[in-house]
């Protein structure tokens, strides 16, 4: 939406077409170009692939130098447990490789519910390799699929 203020009532009779606030539109066009460049630079810098699969992450572990990355896979439903210090521990798998994740931080709203349903919950965890081959996560995103179906009625509710 271009925010155009109401046009001035009449232009000076003496002149050429009114300048049409052209400076404003030059600035606006340049700002748009700047925004596009910024988005592409920030957004796609090494991020065109949003997360690494478990196998890729395991393969890259010796060489990645402890940098932050996103790890994507399915939570093994039966593997979720809470540690005494309040962090959460679970295993994430891509079918070929499996990694233990220790998560410290907010728990997404749907996480407990989905895990409780016994489904393989697809997640993306942000963090880095920690000690003894575990992945230290501080943020869990739920990577929802493109399938939708009506809620089954729970008998107990």
């Amino acid at each position, binding site marked *: *939406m*271009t925010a155009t203020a109401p046009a001035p009532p009449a*232009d000076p*009779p*003496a*002149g*050429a*077409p*009114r*300048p*049409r*606030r*052209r400076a404003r*539109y*030059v600035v*606006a*066009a340049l700002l*748009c*170009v700047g*925004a*596009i460049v910024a*988005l*592409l630079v*920030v*957004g*796609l810098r090494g*991020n*065109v*692939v*949003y*997360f690494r699969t478990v196998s890729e992450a395991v393969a890259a572990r010796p060489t990645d130098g402890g940098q932050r990355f996103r790890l*994507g896979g399915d939570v093994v439903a039966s593997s979720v447990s809470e540690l005494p210090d309040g962090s959460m521990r679970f295993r994430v798998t891509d079918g070929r490789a499996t990694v233990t994740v220790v998560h410290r931080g*907010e728990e*997404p*709203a*749907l996480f407990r519910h*989905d895990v409780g349903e016994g*489904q393989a919950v697809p997640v*993306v965890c942000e963090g880095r390799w920690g000690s003894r081959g575990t992945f230290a996560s501080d*943020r*869990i*995103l*739920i*990577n*929802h*699929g*493109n*399938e*939708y*179906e*009506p*809620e*089954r009625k729970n008998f107990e509710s």
Partner: protein
Amino acid sequence: MTGGARRAGLLGPRVSATTGVATAAALVALVVFGLAIAPPDEIQGDAQRIMYLHVPAAWAAYLAFGITTLASILYLWPRTRSIVWDLVAGASAEVGVVFTGLTLALGSLWARPVWGIWWAWDARLVTTAVLFFLYLGYLSLRRLPGTAESRGKRAAIAALIAFIDVPVVHFSVNWWRTLHQQATVFNPELDPQIHGVMAFTLWLGVLAFTLTYVYLLDRRYRLLALDEDREERELEAAIRARVGPGPAGGAGTTAGTTAGARAGVTP
């Protein structure tokens, strides 16, 4: 003078009013189905209801930019060049920017409850934000000075370049690994992952937003045509004032020539 023709809407008053009524009816039906009749999703619960707006808004944005592209081609093609196509392109792009903004905002409101974040730097989201700024930039470019024909050609070429991003946005979820899910209906397998009332509600949303687009395009086109018409009259008045009360024929010729140049070749 062609002013009279360019003061009309695209559809004509009666069709336009009918479209308005149909649009309102479809939107009301969408509210009823989207918020009351469609069941909550198995996994996402009620949050999934945002899909019935988010997906249609994205579709309407694609459609709007598609029409902008088509109109721009018709403007660039010498045989079909007409100010009408330039105005259609501009009006459609503005409506498209509104729908793209809605798509982004609705996506964000959907992402927070289901992903856990408002925004992700993934390929789908970034390319969609780029789309928003591409067409916002296009709308600014349209306002830069020049004769009608040079402005029209400049805008049409920019529109063709901007449209490249539309397929990139659509296929981004297949080309790159994203947090954003793949298309539910137009996925690579063409195997819809939604059924029954939920699918019906989604299609109703697409219909309602298509009608909304057509209605907005018609209204926005008419406003653009009126503005163009007024600018032309103001220019003529200004030229007449500058040339002064000389021989009537002389002033008239000057004004006519300039107005013709501004309006481009009219059909």
